[in-house]
């Protein structure tokens, strides 16, 4: 990590936010902050942690990142948790709950040295949530960070998880609508993208066109893209339906569905098969199953596309929206969850509820290029101010100050 990392972020995000970071971090020098999740690769959480941890380190904190591991049944259970928190009426058999608790118990022993004396422990999502009960003499503050749209969780599953979550010192949700009835402070912090990561850095036009060419995309035809895991909540079938509707008037349109696989998502293969069936071998529907480290490829595809879809029907936050907007692409997004926070209707893109709505907005933008470009510029500016890693970290540091025994409406930091 370069010693000038903060300066580099200052160039992209602005000096003001970097100044804030330095000021906020100064009293927290040497503080041990441990993040815990269930995968190092794949998914938005891992992507955030890959940069959040070294960034904290450069600011003088002592961060670390631990990953819990389990057998297939453990991931089956936590995938059910994930779907249930997003509102699906998913049953979780008692046996799987026992696997979940047993896995957390085993992982607690493995991680005891890292977690017992940490000043702040941030547990990401349901997988490691039950670790807390195995640390009755923990030294620091424990925070549960929920990245999922938990606005209307399936009650039996939430009741089970709440039994663990309630004992935390605080929790973090991405949107107010996701917050729950809990006996501790609930912080509202949006996730973020890293503007200096492979997925978001500037690319040369040659690299962008070269990448598109590798996947057989025609540079002389309009292209729409959705980047997401093959997950029902991302509505890839709805995207294909919208594509066919637009093709009635724009027959040269190309669609790219670029998905990756997260190691904690056993349902992906099944959804992928359904998507392939719906595409039915169409020459202009490009279904790409990319390795989890294809950040630069995704970056190029986003820059290559005229506009980007995120037509989710449920979404925790939808980092791919901010990623596309950062590349000055308007986004046609599902009117749900964190997408609403990013897609400012008629400013940075359009919010839609149906494939028909998505098709209508796509036709409009592709036939009004100046508006498309204007929206793209506003989208990038909006992300710069709201959804970069720097802002995310500022809010984490504010929260850590609040948790450090001075939790009030106002905290005054002295220069000493």
């Amino acid at each position: 990590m370069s010693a000038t990392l903060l300066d580099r972020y200052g160039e992209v995000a602005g000096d003001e936010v970097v100044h804030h970071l330095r000021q906020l971090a100064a009293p927290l020098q040497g503080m041990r902050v441990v993040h815990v999740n269930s995968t190092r690769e794949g998914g938005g959480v891992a992507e955030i942690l890959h940069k959040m941890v070294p960034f904290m380190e450069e600011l003088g904190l002592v961060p670390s990142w631990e990953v819990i591991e389990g057998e297939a049944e453990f991931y089956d259970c936590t995938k059910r948790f994930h779907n249930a928190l997003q509102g699906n009426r998913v049953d979780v058999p008692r046996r799987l709950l026992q696997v979940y608790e047993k896995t957390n118990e085993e992982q607690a022993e493995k991680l005891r040295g890292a977690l017992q004396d940490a000043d702040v422990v941030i547990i990401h999502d349901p997988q490691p949530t039950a670790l807390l009960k195995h640390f009755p003499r923990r030294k620091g503050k424990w925070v549960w960070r929920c990245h999922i749209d938990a606005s209307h969780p399936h009650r039996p599953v939430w009741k089970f998880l709440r039994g663990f979550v309630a004992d935390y010192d605080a929790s973090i949700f991405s949107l107010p609508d996701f917050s729950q009835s809990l006996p501790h402070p609930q912080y509202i912090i949006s996730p973020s993208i890293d503007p200096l990561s492979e997925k978001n850095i500037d690319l040369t036009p040659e690299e962008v066109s070269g990448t598109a060419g590798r996947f057989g995309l025609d540079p002389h035809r309009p292209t729409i893209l959705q980047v997401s895991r093959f997950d029902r909540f991302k509505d890839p079938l709805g995207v294909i339906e919208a594509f066919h509707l637009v093709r009635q008037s724009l027959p040269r349109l190309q669609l790219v569905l670029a998905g990756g696989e997260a190691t904690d998502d056993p349902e992906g293969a099944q959804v992928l098969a359904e998507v392939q069936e719906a595409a039915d071998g169409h020459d202009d529907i490009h279904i790409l199953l990319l390795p989890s480290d294809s950040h630069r490829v995704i970056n190029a595809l986003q820059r290559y596309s005229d506009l980007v879809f995120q037509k989710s029907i449920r979404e925790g936050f939808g980092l791919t929206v901010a990623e596309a907007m950062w590349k000055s692409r308007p986004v046609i997004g599902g009117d749900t969850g964190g997408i609403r926070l990013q897609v400012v209707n008629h400013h940075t893109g359009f919010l839609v509820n149906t494939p028909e709505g998505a098709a209508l907005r796509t036709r409009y933008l592709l036939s009004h290029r100046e508006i498309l470009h204007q929206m793209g510029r506003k989208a990038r500016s909006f992300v710069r101010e709201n959804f970069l890693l720097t802002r995310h970290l500022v809010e984490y540091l504010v929260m850590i100050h609040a948790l450090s025994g001075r939790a009030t409406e106002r905290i005054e930091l002295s220069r000493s």
Partner: protein
Amino acid sequence: MAAPTEKPIFELKDCALVSLATGRRAQSLGELRDNLAAVEPESLYHHFWGDMLRPRFDEPEFKNDFAAWARHALHDYVLSERLALVDPTLFESLEELRAEVVEICEERLHEVDRAVWAPRDQRFHFLTSTLVVFDTGERLEDPAELAAVVPRLPRGSIYYHFIDARRRHPDGVDDFRAWLRDRQNGYGALCDQLCEVDPFFSTLLETRETLAGIFSSWFNGGGR
């Protein structure tokens, strides 16, 4: 800012905040009224002022969250217009502000024939915030320095010294006025100009620009 009567210097500060859920939610006008009457005053303050620290696309007609929600979730244009006109700078206390907002809701409840409910996923969530204030280390000894310093102040400093200050000073003035009037050096007219700056219907950057213009005119342009 330091107590101006003790030290004739101006301590430049900055701030950042994080939002917290209060657990209170409203899905109808009646629920909004009930929660407004009971919510902690800090939440009321947050929904009128706290969001200013978050850059967003301006909707000048909806400078508070209640008005925006009435428009976008309840689709009650009458209510949103009335709420949008509420200027918190005109109320001496948050309780007076609360009474006004509750009264507007009460009035509307008497006018409408039936309860209108927002969609379940567009409920109003009452938030509050934790504000962290940090000392920039920069000190001003001469008010004339304001002309050069204010144009480059970050938004957090404008918020802290020109908006948040009104809650800290018993007579509700901003930090600049509190400092200047204590200098007893003929800054009365300058303070009057600052008093006329309305921060509520402007963004923080617009307010900074206005303040910078006033200070520049006063100290550099012979405005005094």
